């Protein structure tokens, strides 16, 4: 077919190195196995092993991708061989690879935990295919270099996450999913509005192409764009004025679902904010940094206060997720290299530590037969849980030797250097409130003598604490040996602040 036509003007003619396929594997593989599991809905005993194996391979692939990006720089694969900006480019820089790798690890651990805790009816409903398709959307969002494609991946993981949230269909779940669905639909519609304007202004959707065209456009429309993106992604990240959907829904489904969502999904909003505001609109970000700073401070403090006021332990963790998002936004508000690096590192820590905390909350609730702080007590006979709970408390509050310490120090230091004293105060205040919240949780659950009445039936087969312990161990490793993580996060932040390498990776040397 291609004989007489000269295709060099429209298509990529250099052969694609096999290593670049690593950029596609984290998306294509779970689509394939997820689709296969949808076809095999009757074979219930195949579902879990296939899902776990797939997510293990996906994690290894993202790890290899991270190594490749670290050694050779940004990996680009443009679908269908069309020259960018016409083809959809998967553009994996260090930021995307770091987030994808951490999220894939969390997904893998959650799938292992789900093997035990997801009941047969939920499997028949399609729990594991939905889990895989959510992982597809998450990885796609982290790896893509095209802004409309980013929107599509947002919708992919949203629609699959509906399935995960509503499976089981208790009254609370229906209620929570309805609020989650409607509010997130409005949020992504805002994203779509912004993208429509972006296309109207630049005539392109490829992010690298937008970076090249930004200097030629006057400021005012760009400010509108940046503000719209800020509103849309803040909603997805559950930042302060638009966070209401998270505490309304995340405590209702199976605890593994909560853990996966609480760990990963809000971070996609943070990732999108970093990607779009820092990479595409750095000048507008500087103008918005005051607003983002206030949003960040309010999110941190009010999230922690909200956690302090909850008696349901899973809702408490939900508010802690919100509080953590504030710290990442504080990094974004300061906007210097070290501050962004702190925000990125905090996001990685938060994915791991909060997933572990959700799983811990599930284990505690299962052993006590309730998730209310009024009832849960006297679990002093479970030493493994006590140690893990203590480490996670330190980790999330940002005390040594937990993983939250170093990113918080990075953000605080950067905020002080940039003369944002009040932002520092907010970070420290939210940490204090978090210590109080989790300390009280620890006290009530493990030290308080058992309350005589009110304890529900204990299930015969308890969930294994293994997946939670694996993540807790990782949190300790991140806290005791933070150098590689700090270096990776710093390089990722540098890559955002100096987009030349990103553009060159997509368009070659002439870009």
């Amino acid at each position, binding site marked *: 077919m291609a004989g*007489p*036509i000269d295709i060099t003007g429209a298509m990529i003619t250099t052969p694609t190195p096999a290593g670049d396929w690593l950029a596609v594997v984290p998306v294509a593989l779970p689509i394939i196995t997820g689709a296969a599991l949808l076809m095999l809905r009757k074979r219930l005993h195949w579902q879990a092993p296939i899902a776990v194996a797939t997510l293990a391979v996906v994690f290894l692939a993202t790890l290899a991708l991270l190594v490749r990006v670290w050694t050779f720089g940004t990996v680009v694969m443009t679908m269908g061989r069309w020259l960018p900006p016409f083809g959809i480019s998967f553009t994996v820089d260090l930021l995307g690879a770091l987030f994808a790798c951490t999220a894939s690890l969390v997904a893998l651990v959650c799938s292992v935990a789900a093997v035990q805790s997801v009941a047969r009816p939920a499997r028949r409903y399609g729990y594991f295919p939905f889990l895989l398709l959510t992982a597809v959307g998450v990885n796609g969002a982290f790896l893509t270099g095209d802004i*409309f494609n980013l929107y*599509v991946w947002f*919708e992919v993981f*949203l*629609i699959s996450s*509906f399935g995960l949230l*509503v499976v089981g*269909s208790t*009254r*609370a*779940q*229906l*209620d*929570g*999913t*309805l*609020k989650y*669905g*409607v509010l997130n*639909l*409005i949020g992504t*519609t805002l994203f*779509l*509005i912004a*993208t*429509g*304007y972006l*296309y*109207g202004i630049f005539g392109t959707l490829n992010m690298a192409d937008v970076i090249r065209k930004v200097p030629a456009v006057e400021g005012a429309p760009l400010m509108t764009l940046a503000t719209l993106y800020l509103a849309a992604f803040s909603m997805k990240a559950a930042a302060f004025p638009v966070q209401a959907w998270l*505490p*309304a*829904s995340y*405590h*209702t489904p199976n605890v593994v679902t909560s853990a996966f969502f609480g760990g990963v999904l809000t971070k996609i909003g943070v990732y999108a904010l970093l990607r779009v505001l820092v990479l595409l609109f750095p000048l507008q970000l500087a103008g918005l940094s005051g607003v983002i700073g206030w949003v960040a401070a309010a999110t941190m403090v009010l999230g922690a206060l909200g956690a302090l*006021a*909850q*008696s349901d332990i899973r809702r408490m963790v939900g508010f802690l997720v919100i509080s953590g998002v504030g710290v990442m936004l504080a990094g974004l508000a300061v906007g210097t290299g070290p501050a962004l690096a702190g925000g990125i590192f905090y996001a990685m820590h938060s994915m791991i530590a909060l997933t572990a905390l959700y799983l811990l909350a599930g284990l505690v609730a299962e052993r006590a037969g309730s998730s209310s*702080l*009024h009832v849960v*007590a006297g679990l002093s006979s479970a030493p493994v849980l006590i140690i893990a709970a203590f480490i996670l408390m330190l980790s999330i509050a940002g005390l040594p030797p937990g993983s939250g310490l170093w990113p918080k120090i990075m953000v605080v230091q950067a905020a002080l250097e940039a003369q944002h004293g009040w932002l520092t105060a907010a970070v420290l205040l939210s940490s204090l409130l978090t210590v109080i919240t989790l300390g*009280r949780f620890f006290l*009530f659950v493990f030290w*308080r*003598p058992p309350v005589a009445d009110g304890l529900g039936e204990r299930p015969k087969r308890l969930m294994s604490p293994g997946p939670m312990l694996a993540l807790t161990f990782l949190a300790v490793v991140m806290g005791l040996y933070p150098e590689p993580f700090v270096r990776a996060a710093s390089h990722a932040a540098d890559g955002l602040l100096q987009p030349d390498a990103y553009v060159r990776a997509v368009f070659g040397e002439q870009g």
Partner: protein
Amino acid sequence: MEAVLSILVGLFFTAGIYLMLSKAIVRILLGVVVFGNAVNLLIFTAGRIMREVPPVMSLDMTQLTGDTANPLPQALILTAIVISFSFFSFLLVLTFRTYQEVGTDDTVKLRVAEPEGKILPPMGY
């Protein structure tokens, strides 16, 4: 033409947001649909309105001759329509299920997941 469509988009947004401010979930969902259609129209307008032939080649051609319409906004709108339609139908089914189970579609009364009262944790032991 763009000006007329822009005003129309504005009207759509107004109607959609007005409906979304309501308490009944069905009205909110209708508002979301109007809102979504406003966005589709917005993308259409932002992609520039022009009177050209569609970019389709017959078998014996190797490249397009003359100006053709830009197919990309339409592709974007198609994607957005599909997504918002599947979202809408999912939420519609979910609303119906919720109405069957809980017996209300009033967002103020819909507090199964976040019960009122007895929220505060114990003060000590």
